């Protein structure tokens, strides 16, 4: 190596060392819970991480993707099951591995989890699951703690961002010490609340290497029968392990009421009833019953305050402990200081507060809508026009179920639309054309096996793949159809037409989602085709990866007949003008938000919508 190269080399490594020092620095700064989870995993030396995006878990993998690729291989997987399998593969290889998902993602990934709990781990395996109490952006509010109990894997429940970091780090230790996958459970509130977090350096760990032990790693009946008793032993050992002041924190206080609490409910309890004796659990399964019993004996009355299902309360009842909980606190919805205060009031612990008469105001209903220029709009205008029976799916486009598009008849779970359409067809009496609408990423996630099923079982349905080149609902993540990785690097791009043909579909056409006439025409032809037909509507999301803003449109008021056909698009840029025609409002376009998609101009019967310029 010549001198210059040597200098360059040392310069580079010098920079690298500085960057490394900065990464490892012990600082205190505000982080959302998801960032803290990612940081905790990185500090624990995680090397393989995979996820499918899902609110409120999405940012975990995005933050992991900001750490150097040499530290952690972070990736978007096609669905949660694949992500779980990738993480399990990492664990098999002897490195620490993580997967993150929303609560309903665990349903998809539950198959490998139920096996892996028997198999155990080689490198630490952590599964972060973010629940959504209050159903801010989900299809249900299932409680992951029940899943943890079902799979017999420990579940750690941080109550703030600092604990999110600490517990994630702990989770890897527990995983390796007890030979078990560990679930770290977050909730929307924790995942998206920013609070101060003190960071630490990354602990680099040598890969353990593959553990050549087929009796452990190959879960056939003979091996599973050996594994199940080990799982039960593990449960007992873990319960004893959590019987520790660091995990199950006993906060002395007024003993007229003792509160046992976990997760963010702890923060609400401290807010509303700070003086009560409190037992703060780090893990709600398995429970350290000895310590809990001692706490319960030290107080006059025991209250369990936990969000959603009575997981801890039921376990206490089973252990013969007289605890109150869901008699006062709902199993439905998200907790808040108000909810906890109301429960304590009902339980006779707090006095009834002074209630103010609410202000007499009428806020405007503001349901979420598809964006100005959203390419999904056309597909739903078209399915309305053909009077389709529409099986919908999960994504932004589910918003087409409500006014004014009102074009979706069912929505179940990721990828369900196509299977649902097959069933609707097989029932044999549907007179309207049966159409499944599914987004690009949702199709890759769970639609492909169903499409093959439709072809194989000769269903006469039409599938519309709404390809907007992104996972839009969760804020714009890449997927195999975008040709980019989590880290933004170019990679193989799935071609939807090729994919669909490979599944055996004989009629497939890709159309521009901004060409209303072609979408209508193609859909009609597709419906005419006997058997499975696929229409791919193609246009990028207007928000991600780049915010699209084209020349805006304008309504020529003198030509507007106030028919309000354009209002059927539900475009937030189109509203009423003050000008009326015979008792009807003419329309106007907000040029600051209009992106110039021209859909309104294409459907305007009086042709009075034109580009604003010229």
């Amino acid at each position, binding site marked *: 190596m010549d001198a210059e190269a040597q200098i360059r080399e040392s310069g580079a490594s010098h920079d690298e060392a500085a960057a490394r020092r900065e990464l490892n620095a012990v600082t205190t700064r*505000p982080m959302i819970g998801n960032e803290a989870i990612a940081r905790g995993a990185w500090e624990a030396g995680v090397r393989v991480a995979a996820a499918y995006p899902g609110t409120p878990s999405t940012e975990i993998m995005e933050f992991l993707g900001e750490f150097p690729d040499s530290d952690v291989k972070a990736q978007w997987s096609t669905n949660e099951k694949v992500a779980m399998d990738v993480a399990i593969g990492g664990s098999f290889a002897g490195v620490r591995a993580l997967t993150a998902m929303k609560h309903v993602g665990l349903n998809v990934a539950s198959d490998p989890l139920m096996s892996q709990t028997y198999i155990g781990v080689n490198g630490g395996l952590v599964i972060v699951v973010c629940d959504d109490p209050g159903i801010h952006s989900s299809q249900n509010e299932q409680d992951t703690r029940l899943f943890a109990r079902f799979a017999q894997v420990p579940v750690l429940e941080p109550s703030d961002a600092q604990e999110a970091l600490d517990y994630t780090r702990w989770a890897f230790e527990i995983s390796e010490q007890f030979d078990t996958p560990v679930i770290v459970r977050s909730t929307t509130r924790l995942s998206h609340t920013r609070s101060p977090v003190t960071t630490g350096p990354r602990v680099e760990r040598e890969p353990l290497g593959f553990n050549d032990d087929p009796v452990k790693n190959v879960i056939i009946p003979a091996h599973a029968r050996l594994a199940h008793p080990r799982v039960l032993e593990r449960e007992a050992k873990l319960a004893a392990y959590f019987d520790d002041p660091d995990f199950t924190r006993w906060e002395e206080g007024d003993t007229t009421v003792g509160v046992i609490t976990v997760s963010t409910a702890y923060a609400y309890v401290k807010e509303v009833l700070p003086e009560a004796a409190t037992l703060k659990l780090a893990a709600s399964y398995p429970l350290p019953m000895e310590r809990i019993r001692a706490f319960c004996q030290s107080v006059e009355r025991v209250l369990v305050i936990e969000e959603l299902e009575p997981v801890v309360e039921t376990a206490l009842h089973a252990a013969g402990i007289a605890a109150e909980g869901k008699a006062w606190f709902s199993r439905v919805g998200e907790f808040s200081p108000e909810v906890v205060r109301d429960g304590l009031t009902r339980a006779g612990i707090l006095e009834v507060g002074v209630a103010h008469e609410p202000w007499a105001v009428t806020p405007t209903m503001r349901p*979420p809508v598809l*964006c100005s220029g959203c390419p999904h709009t056309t597909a739903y205008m078209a399915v309305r026009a053909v009077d389709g029976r529409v099986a919908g799916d999960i994504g932004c486009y589910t918003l087409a179920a409500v006014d004014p598009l009102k074009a979706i008849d069912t929505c179940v779970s990721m990828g369900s639309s196509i299977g649902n359409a097959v069933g609707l067809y097989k029932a044999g009496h549907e007179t309207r054309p049966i159409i499944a609408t599914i987004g690009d990423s949702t199709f890759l996630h769970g639609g492909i096996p169903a499409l093959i099923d439709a072809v194989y079982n000769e269903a006469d349905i039409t599938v519309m793949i709404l390809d907007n080149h992104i996972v839009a609902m969760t804020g714009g993540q890449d997927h195999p159809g975008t040709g980019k990785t989590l880290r933004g690097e170019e990679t193989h791009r799935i071609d939807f037409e090729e994919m669909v043909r490979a599944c055996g579909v004989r009629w497939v056409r890709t159309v521009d989602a901004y060409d209303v006439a072609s979408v209508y025409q193609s859909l009609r032809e597709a419906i005419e085709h006997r058997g499975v037909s696929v229409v791919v509507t193609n246009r990028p999301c207007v928000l991600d990866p780049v915010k699209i803003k084209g020349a805006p449109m304008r309504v020529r008021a003198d030509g507007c007949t106030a028919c309000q*056909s354009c209002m059927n698009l539900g475009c937030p840029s189109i509203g009423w003008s003050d000008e009326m025609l015979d008792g009807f409002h003419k329309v106007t376009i907000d040029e600051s938000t209009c992106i110039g998609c021209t859909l309104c101009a294409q459907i305007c019967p009086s042709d009075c919508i034109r580009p604003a310029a010229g």
Partner: protein
Amino acid sequence: MDGSSQKTPAPRNVLIVGVGGQGVILVSKVLALICQRQGLEVKQSEVHGMAKRGGGVFSHVRFGPKVWSPTIPQGEADVLLAMEWSEGLRWLNHLRRDGGTFIADTRRIVPPFAFRSRKYGSRSSYSPEAPREVMEMVGSGYALDASRIATDLGEARAANTVLLGVLSMALDFPVEDWREVIAGTVPAKALEVNRLAFEAGRDWVEAMRAIPLAERLRDLPGRAAEAESLPPKEIRFAITAEWCKGCDICVKMCPERCLRLNDQLVAELTDPAACTGCRICEWLCPDFAIRVQRVPALEPVG
């Protein structure tokens, strides 16, 4: 037990609300950074998900020596900062009754939902309450057209910073901290306009404080006069079945989707209650088979 007694002083609560894309999260981040500079613990909680899709956005910012709950209990916000008028009304009950400050941009972002009823003579369902009556009711706070102040400075997007200027007058943090944090947050090329916007917000409050409340209220916009109710109108839809060839154009183009082809392939009105009498079907029918009358008819122009 009295749940309100606490050893550490209660945290201060600022609730920031608006509509997706307005910068609610950015404003709350600025506030959180300023609180941190004072050595206070800060929790800032928001809910993502629907924010980008035109829904309401809210961010709870709580700060003090110790903060437990990430959300502000109802009736305990010391300041409610509304970047959109109706969103302010939505969260009004979170404002403290004893001296909470309501800071509201009077800007209205009217959602498509407000135009849901397209019937003859129907009106927007956007909140009818006007700044004057609401400020009179709440008693303390500021309603201002921050967007106009920002536009006058040459950058409509700096409305957030105008509101930060107003907020800075409601909280007792050193003004230099505000200036430095804002300078460190906004894009470099927008530094100057945001500096001006921040000072404009502060100056506006300064000017308002010099004016007695009654006068300030008088100058705020009042409720728009109720539009004259329109004379009732009957809609008569008629189709000449012999002329209809079932081309389907009217069915496809009806904005209210209240037409269909019957089993003789003749168009018919399925839902007379939904028909607004817009006449699109009449105008588009290639066979002049449809006639829509609005009785009494429109007066001829001129």
